[in-house]
């Protein structure tokens, strides 16, 4: 379970402090798929990056399984990050390493023995459907295949949490569906808690149980996907929901 309480993040800019997150609170139940949706600049990227402390919050608290993480440093911070997987919009695979070596990376840096790494990598590549790509390099793969490798890599060390930072924003609509189905399947098999940010309502609809709508650095509404989308309260939620509808269909 992830509890985010009154999280605030300010950046110092040349024009003075900029507030990226303003008193954001949300709870992600263990094993759920929690979507955070918002437009560009809403603060969703800062929010997801706070969970593994790629961003250090200015105020507020983040608790993972009841334990506050925001002051973790050094070896404890490293241990936290190794217990959380993350995938990105731009995949971010190591370009000079094979698929096998990329998936092996989280295990290798944790000092896992060679044969244990090999069998785990085999298992993961079978799971993501790339068992014939062990020795390929990222540049030889399509975007969808690269994201599958990234997912295998993120899951290698059996994390309890998987952070997905716009995981399908660089992919076409068909590949997007396949990647989302894979994430859903992994959630079902491993009970990994997934936090996913996106600007596409279709992504939330397809795999999320819960949704948080973020706009202007604040939470506008949240709850089970079905409830929020059936009875959207915030104007921005309605805009996101009906952005693809013909003009007269929008309320």
């Amino acid at each position, binding site marked *: 379970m992830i509890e985010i309480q009154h999280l605030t993040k300010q950046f110092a800019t040349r024009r003075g402090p900029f507030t990226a997150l303003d008193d954001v609170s949300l709870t992600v139940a263990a094993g759920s798929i929690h979507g955070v949706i918002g437009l560009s600049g809403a603060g969703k990227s800062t929010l997801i*990056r706070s969970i*593994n*402390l*790629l*961003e*250090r919050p200015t105020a507020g608290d983040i608790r993972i399984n009841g334990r506050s993480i925001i002051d973790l*440093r*050094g070896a404890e*911070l*490293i*241990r*936290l*990050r*190794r217990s*959380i997987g*993350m995938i*990105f919009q*731009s995949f*971010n*695979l*190591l*370009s*000079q*390493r094979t698929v096998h070596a990329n998936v092996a*990376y*989280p295990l*290798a*840096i*944790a000092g896992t023995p060679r044969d244990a790494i090999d069998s785990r990598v085999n298992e993961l590549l079978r799971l993501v459907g790339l068992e014939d790509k062990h020795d390929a*390099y*990222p*540049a*030889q793969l399509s975007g969808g295949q690269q994201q599958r490798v*990234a997912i295998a*890599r993120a899951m290698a060390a059996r994390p309890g949490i998987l*952070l997905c930072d716009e995981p399908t924003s660089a992919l076409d609509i068909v590949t997007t569906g396949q990647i989302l189905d894979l994430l859903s399947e992994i959630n079902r098999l491993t009970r990994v808690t997934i936090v996913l940010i996106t600007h596409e309502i279709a992504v939330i609809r397809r795999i999320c149980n819960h949704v948080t709508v973020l706009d202007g650095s604040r939470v506008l509404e949240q709850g089970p996907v079905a409830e929020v989308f059936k009875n959207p309260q915030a104007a921005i939620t309605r805009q996101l929901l009906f952005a693809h509808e013909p003009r007269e269909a929008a309320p």
Partner: protein
Amino acid sequence: MIDYLTSFFTAYGGLLFDGTLDTLRMVFISTAFAYVLGLPIGVGLVLTEQYLHADTTTPGAGRATARALHTLLGFIVNVGRSIPFIILLIALLPFTQFVVGTRLGVRATIVPLTVGAIPFVARLVEQSIREIPAGIMEAATAMGSTRWQLVTRVILPESVPSLIMGVALTLITLIGYSAMAGAVGGGGLGDIAIRYGYHRYQADVMLWTIAILVILVQVIQTLGSQLARRVDKRRL
């Protein structure tokens, strides 16, 4: 023409051959030594910089230290790069005498070549590392890499093609520097060009040394570029 070539190379072939070997020896050894110090300095320049900006990637405790270290490294590198090589060469003579016990010849030239190349190498390494997309560094950080793992498993392997281009550039730059060392008795092709071409007005010897220098530069650049391309897994 044939007669000229035969008589020229009978007279000077051995000299030019030895000079070429001396130049290559000086340049390759100096480049190797320069990377021993320049590579860590270049990595240090990037790491201390990231320490400054990413309040996130790294905990805040060492921020002041990182800032001081970054400024210090940058200052040393800039000072080193602003001294013209011919001045450095002469200024270092007592140091050279102290290190290798002589101020003349190939061994003596390796000292100023190395010292002169270190700041150059440090900047090249820094630039190569900066070419790595930020997302890759971020992913490696998010996976829980320690600082050492980040350097040895991500930063250096990811920048290998660019680092190879940097080595070729350093070798070529040092060929130019080594010719200057010839002016103060440094040995190698520059020494031959000055002694025969300048002091004895033997223009043909000088022209041949230049021809050899041009060939050396072409060969090193071509081999460097080819090797960099061959090891780079981004283009397949």
